[in-house]
C-alpha cells in the first residue's frame, strides 16, 4: 500500500446508475440537491417495505442483482429470511414471485423498469395478471431517467405494454412520500400491480405521505384555462410549469394521474368540461401511455383542445437525464412552453 492516491476508487453501489458524481453534474436539478435521503424515493423503497413487513408476514421482496441500486438492501437487513436475490434472471424472478403469491405470500419484485416491465411483459401477463395474483412488480429508473446508459436501460414503452393487460393495476409514483403511500395502499389491493418509479431522486411534490386510492387522481392545483395531467416524475415539473404560466396570466389546473389503469375517467371529463383544454405530460412514448389513456376517454365525451406531450415515438439519444428532459421539453420550462403553444394554436384556429 502506498499513500499516493493513484488508484481509482469504486463508488457506493447505491449511487450506481444515478450519475450523481462527477464535476460536470448535469443530472441533478437544483431542487434535488440538498434534499435529505429520507425524502428521495431511491432511499425509501426498501425501508418502507421493511416497515410494512413488520406487520405483514406475507410480504417478501425479490430483486435481480440490484438490491443496492433500488435500496431493497434495507429490507434485506431487517428481514433476511424474506428477501431473495434472483441474480440477473428477471423472468425467473417474476414467475417465481407468482408461485410465491399462489402460496399466500405478497411479493414485491423490483428491478429496472426496462427489465421488470419490458423484458418480463409475458411473465407479468401470463403468470401474475391472468391468475389474478397479488404480485407487485416494481420498475425503477423508468422512462429516460437512466440518461446516458441508453435505450437498453430506458423504459418508454412499459405503460403502453402493460396497460393492455387485463386486470393489471398500473401505477406511477411521484416522489418519496407518494411512493410510501402507494406501497401502503398496495398491501391489501387485489390482483397484480405494476408500480413505476422514476430515477429515485425525484423532487418533492408531497410534503406528507398522501392517502392513495388507486384509480383516483390527485388534483394538486386549480386553474380554469387548461389542465395539465401529469404522471410520475413529470408531476413536479408540471407544477413548476403551472407556476410560471400563472405569472403570464394562464391558470393551469394540475392533476397527478398516478394510476394509469384503472384511469380516473371522471377527472378527465371534469378537466375537459371545466377547463376546456388538456395537456398530458409523461416520461414515455406518446403512443400507448398516459396520453393515449386520456385520449380514449376524451373521444367519448366533449372535444376539447388536447395534446399528448412526451417522447414522440423515438428512441432517446444519449445524454445526462437533465439534458434529456430539456431536449424533450419535459422540464418545467419545456412544459410551460408546450402549454403556451397549445393555447396559442387554439386561439389562432
Amino acid at each position, binding site marked *: 500500500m502506498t499513500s499516493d492516491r493513484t488508484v481509482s476508487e469504486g463508488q457506493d453501489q447505491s449511487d450506481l446508475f444515478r450519475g450523481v458524481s462527477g464535476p460536470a453534474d448535469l443530472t441533478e436539478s437544483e431542487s434535488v440537491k440538498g434534499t435529505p435521503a429520507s425524502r428521495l424515493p431511491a432511499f425509501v423503497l426498501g425501508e418502507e417495505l421493511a416497515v410494512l413487513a413488520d406487520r405483514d408476514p406475507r410480504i417478501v421482496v425479490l430483486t435481480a442483482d440490484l438490491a443496492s441500486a433500488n435500496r431493497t438492501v434495507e429490507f434485506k437487513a431487517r428481514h433476511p429470511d424474506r428477501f*431473495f436475490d434472483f441474480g440477473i*434472471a428477471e423472468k*425467473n424472478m417474476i414467475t*417465481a414471485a*407468482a*408461485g*410465491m403469491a399462489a402460496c399466500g405470500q405478497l411479493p414485491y419484485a423490483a428491478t429496472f423498469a426496462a427489465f421488470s416491465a419490458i423484458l418480463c411483459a409475458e411473465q407479468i401477463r401470463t*403468470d401474475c395478471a391472468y391468475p389474478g395474483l397479488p404480485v407487485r412488480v416494481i420498475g425503477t429508473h423508468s422512462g429516460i431517467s437512466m440518461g446516458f446508459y441508453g435505450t437498453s436501460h430506458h423504459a418508454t414503452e412499459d405503460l403502453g405494454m402493460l396497460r393492455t393487460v387485463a386486470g393489471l393495476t398500473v401505477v406511477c409514483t411521484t416522489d418519496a412520500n407518494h411512493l410510501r403511500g402507494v406501497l401502503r395502499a398496495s398491501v391489501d389491493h387485489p390482483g397484480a400491480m405494476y408500480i413505476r418509479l422514476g430515477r429515485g431522486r425525484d423532487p418533492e411534490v408531497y410534503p406528507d405521505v398522501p392517502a392513495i386510492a388507486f384509480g383516483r387522481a390527485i388534483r394538486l392545483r386549480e386553474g380554469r384555462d387548461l389542465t395539465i395531467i401529469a404522471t410520475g416524475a413529470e408531476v413536479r415539473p408540471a407544477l413548476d410549469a403551472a407556476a410560471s404560466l400563472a405569472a403570464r396570466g394562464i391558470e393551469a389546473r394540475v392533476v397527478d394521474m398516478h394510476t394509469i389503469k384503472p384511469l380516473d375517467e371522471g377527472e378527465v371529463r371534469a378537466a375537459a368540461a371545466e377547463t376546456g383544454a388538456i395537456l398530458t405530460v409523461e416520461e414515455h412514448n406518446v403512443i400507448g401511455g398516459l396520453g393515449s389513456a386520456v385520449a380514449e376517454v376524451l373521444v367519448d365525451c366533449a372535444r376539447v383542445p388536447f395534446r399528448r406531450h412526451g417522447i414522440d415515438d423515438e428512441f432517446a439519444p444519449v445524454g445526462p437525464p437533465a439534458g434529456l428532459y430539456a431536449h424533450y421539453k419535459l422540464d418545467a420550462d419545456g412544459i410551460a412552453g408546450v402549454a403556451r403553444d397549445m393555447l396559442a394554436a387554439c386561439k389562432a384556429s
Partner: protein
Amino acid sequence: MAMTTAAARSGHGRNATPEFLADRARFVRLETLRLTRIAGAGHYSSTFSAAELFAALYYAHLRIDPARPDWPDRDRFILSKGHAAIGLYPVLADLGFFDPALLDDYTRLGSPFGDHPDMKKIKGIDFSSGSLGHGLSIAVGMALAGRVQERDYRVYCMLGDGELHEGQVWEAAMAASHFRLQGVVGIVDRNGLCIDGHTEEIMGIEPIDERFRSFGWEVQRIDGHDFEAILGALGELAPAGVGAPQMIVADTVKGRGVRMMEGSLNWHVGNLVGRDYDAVVAELQRGLAPAAAK
C-alpha cells in the same frame, strides 16, 4: 366411458397395485380420446407419453386431498407442459376434485376446461400453464413460500423435453439449486419429439441428466412407462428441506399406447373420427403392447 369415482378411490394410496395404476393410465388415454373428440382436436401423443406418470403421481404418491383443494400443506403439482392437461382433468375428476360430468362440455364456450389449465376455474390445478418454460420458476417460488411458512410440502413440476429449449427453465434450475430447494421435484417427460421433429435434430438437449447434475440437481433417469421404476424413483425422493433439488428424467414414447402414434410426428395435435376412433379405443382397452421402436 369414465370409470366411477368410487372405483378409482378404492385403489388410491401408496399401496396402489401396478395393475390398478395401469388401469388408471388406460383411463387417462381413453378419456383423452373422448375429450379430444368433443373438442375436435387435442394433444394426444404428449398426453399418452405422460399417462403412467400421471397415474403414479396422483393415485400413489402426491400428498393431496380432493376435499380440500386449498389445503396449505398439500403437495403442489405444476403441469408446465400444460398441453397435456387433457390427461390431467379426468384424473382430478376421478379423484373427486370436481364432477366428472363437467368434462362433457370440454372446451365448449364457457367451459372451465381449455386445452391449457386455468387455476382460477379448476379445483386441483395448482397453477395455470401453457406458455412453456414457466413452470419450474413457479415451483421455485412455491418452494420458497413453503420455506418462509415452514411447511414441508413438495412441489412437483412436469416439463416437456422440448420445453427445455426455453432459457427460463435454466434460470429456474439455477435458482432451485442456489436456494437449496430440495422440495422441488422436476419430472421431464422425455418423449423425444417436439412439434417440428426429434429434439436432437431441432435443438439438441442431451445429455439432460448430466445437464441438470451440472446445475446442482440430484437426477434419476428411468423408464417413464414402467410403474416399478416410477414408484421406485418417487420413493427415493428426499423430503422437502435444504438440499439439492431433485429431477426425474422419464424416458417415454410419444403417443405410447397407440401403435400408429408411437414415435410419430403426426399426432402432436389430431382428431380421430369414425372407425379410426373405435379401433384406437379397442387397442387401448387391450392394454399396452411393447412399444414401437423409437
